[in-house]
């Protein structure tokens, strides 16, 4: 957070002025207009990058030259925001890779080599151009802008040839509503300039300009829908324009009153216009369920995408899974079940700093909640497993946990007529197999979800009492506190909007003990030691999965090693700038190290907000009623459900 730059360029007034001109009632014309705008705006960005390049090459240590550079940077970014909704919709991976990806190094995917790719594009430039002394970074600026130009022009050659269809446009608009709300407004991609609000306004205008071309058609079919949408677009724009301060912008109101309603209404627009869906165009299901109406609801997500579960025999499978989940038969010692460390009465955690092994010894890590755990690209705190269903394989083979393998488990289960009956009923095709065990448990764990907390209800405009403190807390979480730049809404975990296909991990510099005077790094290497060859890079040392803060009131203690017993301690850690802010020397830390400077009240507000995120699946607070099936071997019948 260097300095706040306010830029309201002339182009903005131009947009407001022309936004409401009527368009002919013709789908072809609407599409042509969008395409025409897109091509023209892409050309503007080309010119702006050239201007930016020129400003960098003529940069001196002079204040005027620095201002010229920064203005050129902001102009290029604003031009990018005009095309963001389409360019990122059409090519999310490319935009992230070369245009506006996070300023963090990554490992190159899909090559037989561990190679760290340095970040490139507008976000890195945002930090450089607004560095305390940009002149000192002149060579780097020139290199990066030239690189941006080369990549952007290649991208433009491709984007200009895309056959745009109606479906693309409406889908891109809806996706941009998520992007503005959950990324842009949090300051995610403006780490140096903090120009998030003016950027959001430009993005809003440009995106809904595309809607306006379609509005006459919507109006002809459903005048009321058209009227509501147009009013919300206009009011949202006014709200953004009249509240340009990053720290005080009321995100809750903006999202609740404008962004989220529009997200739902644009779905109506899609169907009212009888435009085909992605499925009809032959595309695969995505993490976002397009038919969802709210950004604060589980219906935003497509659970099947994450879990791979089908509806076939779902009830039988879930019941089998529930039984297996609480049955220590899966462990060699007959002492541990899944429920031992994932206790429903503690929101499926265990209250321990780190979970206990079958011998009662502390293991390496804190047990994360299973509620909403399905919504991830990768599993475990070190991101070592990519498939929801095979998560439990690690628990089965771990010598401290179940210390077994599936051959042993299958041989054991075959000795129980009760289990065999359940398995044959649930898996008539394959019968008893590793798949039956892991899939059944997946069915049960995937059922442990919920995103209808009081704060979700509040943002959905439902009648629910919400304290000013919690609302302030949301605004800090999503703004000045920068919590939402990693704990992305609405899962408040590390799955990245607007596609929610990627799980992030962060190097926070979490200490071994809560002692702030003697701040020592926890030795756990996290992601770097997860046994995946592509994660062995040093950038992943001490990196851990960004977990959800939903239900956090019930999941103490906190962090991967359970070092903090209270949310106050957690907030204090972040408020002081994380590990780096505590003077920890460790490469690749994610946090900037600057204190957040949140007041005691603000911290209390964030905590109140987080405590409004509870939504425990119904009945879970009770002790689960599970009858353990009997076995022919009497030794196996002495086992007991664990003492959670």
């Amino acid at each position, binding site marked *: 957070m260097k300095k706040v730059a306010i830029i309201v360029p002339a182009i903005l007034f131009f947009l407001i002025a022309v936004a409401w001109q009527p368009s002919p009632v*013709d*789908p*072809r014309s609407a*599409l*042509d207009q969008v395409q025409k705008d897109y091509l023209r705006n892409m050309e503007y960005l080309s010119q702006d990058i050239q201007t930016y390049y020129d400003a960098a090459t003529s940069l001196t240590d002079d204040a005027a030259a620095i201002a010229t550079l920064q203005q050129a940077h902001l102009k290029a970014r604003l031009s990018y925001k005009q095309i963001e909704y389409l360019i990122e*919709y*059409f*090519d999310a*991976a*490319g935009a992230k*890779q070369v245009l506006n990806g996070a300023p963090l190094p990554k490992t*190159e*995917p*899909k*090559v*037989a*080599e561990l190679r760290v790719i340095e970040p490139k594009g507008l976000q890195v430039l945002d930090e450089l151009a607004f560095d305390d002394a940009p002149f000192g970074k002149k060579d780097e600026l020139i290199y990066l802008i030239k*690189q941006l130009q080369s990549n952007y022009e*290649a991208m433009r*050659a*491709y984007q200009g*040839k*895309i*056959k745009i*269809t*109606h479906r*693309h446009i409406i889908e*891109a608009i809806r996706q941009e509503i998520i992007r503005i709300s959950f990324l842009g407004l949090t300051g995610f991609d403006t780490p140096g300039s903090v120009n998030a609000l003016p950027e959001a306004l430009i993005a809003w205008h440009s995106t809904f300009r595309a809607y306006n071309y379609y509005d006459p058609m919507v109006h002809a*079919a459903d005048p009321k829908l058209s009227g509501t949408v147009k009013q919300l677009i206009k009011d949202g724009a006014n709200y953004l324009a009249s509240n340009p301060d990053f720290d005080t912008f009321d995100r809750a109101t903006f999202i609740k009153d404008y962004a989220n309603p529009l997200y739902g209404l644009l779905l109506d627009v899609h169907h009212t216009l*009888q435009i*085909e869906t992605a499925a*009809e*165009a032959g*595309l*695969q*299901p*995505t993490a976002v369920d397009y038919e969802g109406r709210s950004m604060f609801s589980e219906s935003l997500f497509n659970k*099947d995408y*994450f*879990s*791979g579960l*089908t509806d076939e025999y779902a009830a039988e499978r879930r019941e089998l899974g529930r039984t297996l989940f609480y049955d220590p038969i899966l462990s060699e010692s007959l002492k541990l079940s899944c429920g031992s460390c994932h206790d429903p009465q503690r929101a499926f955690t265990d209250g321990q700093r780190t979970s206990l092994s079958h011998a009662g010894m502390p293991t390496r890590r804190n047990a994360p909640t299973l509620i909403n755990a399905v919504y991830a690209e990768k599993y475990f705190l070190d991101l070592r497993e*990519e*498939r929801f*269903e095979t998560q439990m394989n690690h628990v089965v083979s771990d010598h401290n946990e179940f210390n077994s*393998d599936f051959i042993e488990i299958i041989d054991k289960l075959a000795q129980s007529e009760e289990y065999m009956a359940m398995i044959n009923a649930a898996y008539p095709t*394959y019968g008893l197999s*590793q798949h039956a065990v892991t*899939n059944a448990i997946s069915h049960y764990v995937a059922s442990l979800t919920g995103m209808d907390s009081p704060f979700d209800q509040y943002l959905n405009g439902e009648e629910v009492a919400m304290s000013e403190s919690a609302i302030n807390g949301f605004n800090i979480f999503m703004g000045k506190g920068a919590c939402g730049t990693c704990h992305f809404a609405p899962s408040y975990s590390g799955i990245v909007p607007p596609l929610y*296909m990627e799980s992030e991990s962060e190097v926070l510099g979490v200490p071994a003990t809560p002692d702030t005077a003697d701040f020592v790094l926890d*030795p756990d*290497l996290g992601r*770097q*030691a*997860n*046994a*995946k*060859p592509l994660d*062995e890079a*040093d950038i992943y040392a001490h990196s851990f999965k960004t977990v959800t803060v939903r239900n956090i009131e019930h999941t103490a203690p906190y962090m991967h090693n359970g070092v903090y017993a209270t949310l106050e301690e957690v907030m204090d850690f972040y408020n002081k700038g994380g590990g780096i802010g505590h003077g920890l020397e460790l490469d690749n830390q994610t946090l900037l190290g600057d204190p957040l400077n949140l007041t005691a009240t603000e911290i209390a507000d964030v905590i109140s907000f987080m405590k409004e995120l509870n939504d425990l699946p119904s009945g879970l607070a009770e002790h689960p009623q599970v009858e353990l099936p009997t076995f022919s071997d009497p030794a196996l019948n002495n086992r007991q459900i664990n003492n959670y």
Partner: protein
Amino acid sequence: MLKFNTFLALFLCASGLIGQAIFAEEIDVPKGHISERVVMPPSPLTLQVLFVGGHDIVQTTETYYNPAGRQIAKEWHDFIGMTPDPTGASLGWVSVNHEMIYRDDKIGDGGGMTVFRIDRDPITGLLEVVDQTLEDGRSGQYFNVDFANTVGETGMNCGGISSTFDGRIWTAEEWFRTSNTSIHNSNSDVGSPTADLPAEPYDDDRPGGGVRDTADFTVFSEDFPEWDGMILKKYQNFNYMVEIDPKEAKAIRKQYNWGRMGWEGGAITNDNQNVYMGPDATPGYFMRFRADRPGDFTKGSLYAYKEDAADKWVLIEGTPEEMLDVSSLCAAAGATMYNRPEWVAHDKASNKIYWTETGRDFPGSRFANGIAAGATMSYAHNARAEAQGLADATDSNYRDTYGRIWVYDPATREHYVHLEGGPDWTEAMSPSESEYFDKHLTNPDGLSVMTIDGQSFLVIQEDMNGTSYGRMPAGTSGRFCELYILNLAIENPTIDDLIRITAVPAGAEVTGAIQTPDGVSLLVNSQHPIVSNPFPWNHSLTFAINGFDRVTVEDLNTDAEEAIAVKKKNFKDNVEDAFTIYPNPTTRTVFLDKTTDVAIYDVRGSRVKVERATNRVDVSELKAGIYFIQNTAGEMVQLVIE
């Protein structure tokens, strides 16, 4: 709803152009006369799942103090080897690679292979996995190939060699390893996985996720006197081509004399004397081993291709220690650099060698390192870089997004690009609007040759490096890899000549494709699909596409213009311009007479599919039944899918 449909229909008629029509979600099913009714017969090709990783059970040998027994098979299926049964008692033996480096107490740490024997049921025509009892006493269907107790653990088993001469099988240990830590896969004993890990013998409790035995490895091999008795760091016993015995499920020898490299694929020519190979790296080199005597690959010489050398091949020789890093020897010899050479295939009919250069988004810095070490740049890359406005391919902004396929003729030593991946979106290379996205090729990896109707076809398998820059259709982000075949009779082919045979589940790489000796089936691996696919397609698995004996070259025709023209001629004069379609049951494609938007409605009049600005529709996912296809002009054709 009716009123609104009428409103939309106005635009339908008025628009006339493609890419913009709106089709009503529901229509009244046409009654009475409809200008055309087209029947698409069932495909002659059918799918059959053969071997599911993480599900099927393999028979193991005594390993790491565990007795011989059973274990769930490893996953990450990559290469498939096919060894014909000379006795005729069965079709032969199938060998499947597991491209991973994970610990397993019973199979052995690292990667591995599974072998099984197949035969064809004479009544159903389906393949069946045959029960076997091996010399070492193991009985069952699927067998783990024993590496740990023979030649030492293996890892990252990607491609390999399935000899077209006699079905001998080698597995390739890809991904060049540089330390014991990198095979042990992350441990906390040394503080950092990139720090050096001490050599220690196997211990069940060592924390690594990969190879736990890091003790020095002593080569014991009568085949290679120069290497016999040599003491290697454990990691130095990885990255070889390794011959296995698919009938007895055990490894025979690591091919120390071919040198240590990140080997990926290879092929043997008709003389049974020359092996052509690709190592997956940037820079990577096109390699050849020439045996002194046919069939004995333990003695001979190693060469690297050098485009600017008079006789094209430069000898690569060194002491056993120097052969532990063949890439450095290649660079020093000035060999020609490529961007991830992967699989190598051999066409028995022409004796030509084809190989995939998978490509990599920004290879420039790696090429620059190669130049500094003495290597030379391929003409193809420098030409591409120039076309991108750059000085040469060492520029960090040089892009090689799509990759390509090369052909080499041993008779002439000529070597050139056979098929360029793409489209690359530059003016000259952009596809015709109607052909994209159907016509594209992204990062070819697996490669083999199959015979259909007496004609050789290249079998090309994608493994996408990414989804950016049009490698996936606009607006989609998941990976979707496809398998194409390409008629080798076509001279100077382009991506327009590719015929799509199958696509694997979302997120998976399609690989390993190889034809059964009877020509009926193509065995294919689907590797690392994402979880959202239904079981068993959420696992790496081996499946068969059966029925190629019933496919003719004509059946695979992707150019329907002629067929449609003939069909139109047969119409009466007044309907000659009518909307005409032509089905191809083999590729499950419906060709259209012109580029248009189309909507497909089911028998109840509900819209089920919309394709825009296209001259073909893939209907493979539509269930059998009656459908109506409507074009931009509102014309409708009935399609019966059988």
